């Protein structure tokens, strides 16, 4: 029994380290070591255990207090946009990093959430009339599909329900047939391409290539006002924080362990009495729900949702961001989305042509030299430091 009692504190430990390494490197977080768990009497074990919650709290303070004070409205808006992407990245980290499902079509779910929100906002702004773009494309009567989205409760529910149901259906079809790896990746990518074609083709229904834009009012707040944008930023940051904690709880639960087991040995998991298809489908649905929420938040923050924002390229860019940040750690995924968001903005302003190549090169570099991404590099550095300290 003693060995478990030793390892209990680690299991009970509250919030995670947002900059934490993947469980792939348990020695760094002071997880259970070969000689038993972290010592109960404190020392390095306790410090490591508190490092996670402390770092999370520090990041939370910076994001919720420092940033809104330090950044001018334009910069704060940019950060809000990156945090929306970070929410998608969190879902990718869960599905790909923990579950081994390389999903190249998260833009689909992002889009479903975004369009659900956009439709509500358009109807709300139109105030009983037809949305502006429909008038321009000669639509005379509100399409039946749009009707229910005038109700905010319905629209907000659809932000989550649509992506989750779609992912559940897809997962049930695909994972039961044991489609995985590259086949799954290509399938999700094809889905993203198909959705774009569908959206572009239905000009009167979806706004076509332009998508849905020109929003003015967000639940009684003027979207052009700085205060509204500041408030939206805080909402995005809070949602990200809450989802992060939820994802972290999921990862450390039995389900999370099972997910890692499915990633590393799907066929072996069957002989433990679990159906890997169920585990994967559920996780995929959760990651889809996150992308949907992110899409819905993105709409008021950026003021537009369009096919170009959810197609193959943006879906891929997010996967690259997660790889760069470190897919095995949830924090790595989030970090990657923010870093790559800033990098894209910077390089697209300075050297627009080079960005695509730079991004590709970075991806290859990371995959070959540092497969655990920035999070892995950070963990390695910390490891070097602690062992130096221990040696001294």
């Amino acid at each position, binding site marked *: 029994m003693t060995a478990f009692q030793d390892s209990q504190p680690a299991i009970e430990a509250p919030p995670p380290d947002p900059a934490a390494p993947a469980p792939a490197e348990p020695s760094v977080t002071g997880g259970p070591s070969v000689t038993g768990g972290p010592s109960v009497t404190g020392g390095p074990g306790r410090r490591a255990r508190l490092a996670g919650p402390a770092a999370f709290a520090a990041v939370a303070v910076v994001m919720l207090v420092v940033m809104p004070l330090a950044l001018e409205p334009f910069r704060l808006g940019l950060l809000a946009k990156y945090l929306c992407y970070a929410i998608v990245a969190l879902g990718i980290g869960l599905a790909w990093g923990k579950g081994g499902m390389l999903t190249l079509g998260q833009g689909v779910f992002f889009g479903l959430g975004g369009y659900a929100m956009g439709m509500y906002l358009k109807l709300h702004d139109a105030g009983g009339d037809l949305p502006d773009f429909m008038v321009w494309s000669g639509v005379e009567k509100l399409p039946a599909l749009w009707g229910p989205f005038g109700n905010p409760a319905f629209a907000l529910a659809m932000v989550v329900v649509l992506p989750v149901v779609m992912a559940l259906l897809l997962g049930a079809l695909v994972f039961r047939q044991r489609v995985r790896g590259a086949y799954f990746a290509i399938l999700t990518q094809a889905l993203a391409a198909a959705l774009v074609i569908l959206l572009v083709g239905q000009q009167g229904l979806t706004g076509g290539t332009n998508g849905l834009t020109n929003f003015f009012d967000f639940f009684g707040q003027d979207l052009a006002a700085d205060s509204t944008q500041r408030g939206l930023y805080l909402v995005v940051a809070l949602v990200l924080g809450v989802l992060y904690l939820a994802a972290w709880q999921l990862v450390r*639960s039995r389900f999370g362990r099972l997910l*890692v087991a499915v990633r590393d040995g799907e066929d072996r998991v069957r002989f433990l009495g679990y159906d890997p298809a169920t585990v994967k489908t559920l996780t995929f649905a959760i990651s889809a729900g996150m992308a949907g929420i992110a899409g819905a938040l993105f709409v008021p923050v950026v003021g537009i949702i369009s096919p170009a924002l959810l197609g193959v390229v943006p879906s891929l860019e997010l996967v690259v961001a997660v790889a760069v940040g470190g897919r095995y750690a949830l924090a790595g995924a989030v970090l990657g989305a923010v870093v790559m968001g800033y990098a894209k903005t910077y390089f697209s302003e300075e050297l627009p042509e080079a960005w695509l190549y730079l991004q590709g090169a970075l991806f290859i570099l990371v995959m070959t030299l540092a497969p655990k991404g920035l999070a892995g590099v950070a963990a390695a550095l910390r490891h070097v430091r602690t062992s130096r300290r221990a040696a001294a």
Partner: protein
Amino acid sequence: MSDNLLEIRGLQVAFDGFRALDGVDLTVGAGELRFLIGPNGAGKTTLIDVITGLTRPTAGSVRFGGQELVGRREHQIVRLGVGRTFQTSVVFEELTVLENLDLAASFRRPLWSLLRSRRGVPETVDKALETTGLTALAGSRAGVLSHGQRQWLEIGMLIAQEPRLLLLDEPVAGMAQDERARTGELLTQVARDHTVIVVEHDMEFLRRYASQVTVLHEGRVLTEGSVEQVRADPRVQEIYLGRAREGAEDAVR
């Protein structure tokens, strides 16, 4: 007949025309410890694969506790109470020993309850740790275990599943002498309150721990009986002598 836990009748498996199993009949009673031997390629692993749903037979039936297993999916068969290990052990290296065992012990829980964090250690896991002697390594990643320890962890996971029938595919392959002895003891202990089928090549091991033996050869059951009976059978001597002179001569002596 109702005492028979496992009844296999007329089992056939073909791989691209090659008959890996060619009409196997096998009956194992509840509480038995049965050894399954046979030269390389005899079809021992294939037989276990069919029982556990990994391979579909072309003909025949596998009844377990009165229920047909053929046609069910792997995890459903586990849920009926059949557990197995693999010839080359597969454990989840990223997870700790404790987590490996805990997952094995938790499959009967409803899925939603898995979303909660684990608090404490289930009794079955505790027992499996004790039985396999891995208690001191509970918090270690399974990736750091030695070959022998991995095999024990696999057996531990099997015990933690609390199956009614255990199928072990060459549990001592690649083990050092002292590890073999420990595994043998472990096996005897497990067999006390479980029905166990063990595939094993190692004749020394067989001599020590086996009572009932079934010999498989070219996809058929060649003979069945006590260790002495089987060893005295000239056909058994021949297939072992014919295939591998050195080790086998000693084996059947």
